[in-house]
């Protein structure tokens, strides 16, 4: 209510800027970052809560007078070197910001250091930044580790468990590996120079293909030698690849940044440095068998390739071709004979048939002619009959003529008197004296002359 009433009053001195809530929160937050950047803040941890689903951590940092909300995101809190607990006195490295959703002031924590180590930590951060800017931690500088080194250099304490762990892992994985140990102090005042010297020694003598530098876990002070510039530089300068294996997984030293590989523990270093040779051995055996199998398969494939065509029809076809040729030959050769034979027989038959037809017509004609000629005697028959008939008739007529002869009466003594003209004289009066007469008797006749006329008509 009051704020609403207040707003209603005109501003006496200057006109307030009206902005949205988000704009205000944003601008306030920006102002905070500009004012403070990253700061260390000391206080006591209370209301600690590790939010599991997100992995972020939330707590309140307080002293006698004030308190402030803290958030540490998962990516940062994973690197915490120790577990945070209720009531712990710590220095947090953080950026003061405002949580936009609530407009709440808070610290975004990137690192937490126990209260007493705050100075060391800041020194660590400063050196890290300087060397980092110098490029010592460039990924490009990092050398790759040999796949399967024959010799491994080890820079660590001769007494610690770290060496034992490392050696046992290495020899278990690669029994044929030679481990060259350069024992050094790993804490105390002498530690850093010794470590640096040992690293350089390996760099100079090249008796190992890779060097492991490390020790077991401990407090930040215990591990401090590995944060010393001299050690970091020795590692960074080594032409022989260096593997760092310092403390536990959560302990990060500058040596780790400079090394070509950071192993979380000495045992892990042993695992990284040599391969599991048993597997290689198995692999080689396997490869050998594959080789033998493959070469045999190739050989068999060739054999199959050589035999497959042989089994194909093409080769059998030679036989079929030969058979076909044989068959064609047999058919053609076989057909020839009967054809010629038939042909000859046909011609012969034709000739014989024609020849047989030749004689009959001629014989028939000849016989016909003979037959007709055979009728020739009939010529005589007709003639002789006619001749006979004429002859007989003539005789007969002669007979009859003779019988009818007027002279037959003369046989009885009569005579026929004819005048000179041959006329039968039937009347004496038809004659004159001295007329010549002919008197015909039955046999013979005489010539006579009229001497006297006795006219009977007058009688």
């Amino acid at each position, binding site marked *: 209510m009051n704020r609403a009433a207040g707003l209603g009053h005109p501003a006496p001195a200057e006109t307030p800027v009206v902005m949205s809530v988000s704009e205000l929160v944003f601008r306030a937050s920006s102002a905070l970052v500009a004012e403070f950047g990253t700061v260390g803040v000391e206080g006591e941890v209370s209301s600690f809560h590790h939010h599991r689903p997100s992995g972020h951590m939330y707590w309140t940092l307080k002293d006698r007078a004030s308190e402030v909300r803290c958030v540490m995101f998962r990516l940062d809190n994973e690197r915490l070197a120790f577990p945070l607990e209720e009531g712990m006195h710590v220095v947090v490295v953080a950026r003061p910001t405002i949580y936009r959703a609530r407009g709440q002031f808070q610290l975004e924590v990137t690192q937490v250091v126990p209260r007493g180590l705050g100075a060391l930590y800041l020194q660590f951060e400063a050196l890290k930044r300087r060397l980092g800017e110098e490029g010592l931690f460039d990924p490009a500088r990092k050398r790759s580790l040999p796949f399967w080194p024959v010799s491994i250099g080890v820079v660590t304490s001769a007494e610690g468990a770290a060496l034992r762990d490392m050696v046992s892992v290495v020899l278990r994985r690669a029994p044929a590996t030679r481990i060259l140990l350069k024992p050094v102090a790993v804490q105390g005042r002498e530690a850093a120079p010794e470590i640096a010297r040992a690293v350089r020694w390996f760099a100079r003598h090249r008796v190992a293909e890779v060097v492991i530098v490390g020790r077991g876990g401990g407090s930040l002070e215990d591990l401090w030698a590995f944060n010393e510039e001299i050690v970091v530089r020795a590692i960074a300068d080594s032409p022989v690849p260096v593997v760092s294996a310092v403390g536990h997984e959560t302990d990060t030293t500058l040596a780790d940044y400079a090394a070509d590989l950071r192993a979380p523990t000495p045992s892990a270093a042993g695992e990284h440095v040599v391969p599991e040779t048993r597997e290689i051995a198995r692999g080689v055996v396997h490869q050998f068998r594959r080789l033998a199998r493959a070469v045999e398969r190739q050989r068999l494939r060739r054999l199959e390739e050589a035999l497959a065509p042989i089994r194909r029809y093409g080769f059998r076809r030679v036989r079929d071709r030969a058979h076909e040729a044989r068959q064609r030959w047999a058919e053609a050769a076989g057909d020839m004979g009967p054809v010629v034979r038939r042909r000859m027989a046909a011609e012969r038959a034709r000739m014989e048939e024609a020849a047989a037809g030749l004689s009959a017509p001629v014989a028939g004609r000849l016989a016909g002619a003979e037959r007709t000629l055979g009728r*020739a*005697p009939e*010529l*005589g028959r007709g*003639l*002789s009959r006619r*001749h*006979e008939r*004429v*002859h007989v*008739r*003539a005789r007969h*007529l*002669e007979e*009859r*003529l003779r*019988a*009818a*002869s*007027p*002279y037959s009466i003369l046989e009885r003594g009569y005579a*026929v008197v*004819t005048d000179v003209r*041959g*006329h*039968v004289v*039937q009347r004496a009066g038809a004659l004159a004296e001295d007329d010549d007469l002919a008197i015909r008797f039955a046999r013979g006749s005489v010539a006579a002359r009229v001497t006297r006329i006795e006219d009977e008509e007058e009688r």
Partner: protein
Amino acid sequence: MTQIPIDVPEGDEPGSRVPAAPDAAATPVEEQLRRLEAIVQKLESEAVSLDESIALFEEGVELAVAVRRRLEVSEGRIKRIVERSEGLFSLEDFDLE
């Protein structure tokens, strides 16, 4: 000799008179025989005067003689033909010889 027209008795045809004897040589024997027969028949009938019958008879005799002569000639011819027939016929076939 005068030709006396003779009625041929057998002839059915009304005009079948015995034809006047042509030239003997040219007349077939058969015609001569026919005339002869006509003459004989005429002679055999009563209706002929002696004078006629004598004339007919004379003619008949002449004819008969001519026929006989011609038959002789014919036979001679046949004989010659038969002799030339190279054995095809013999004279017996014709009651000749």
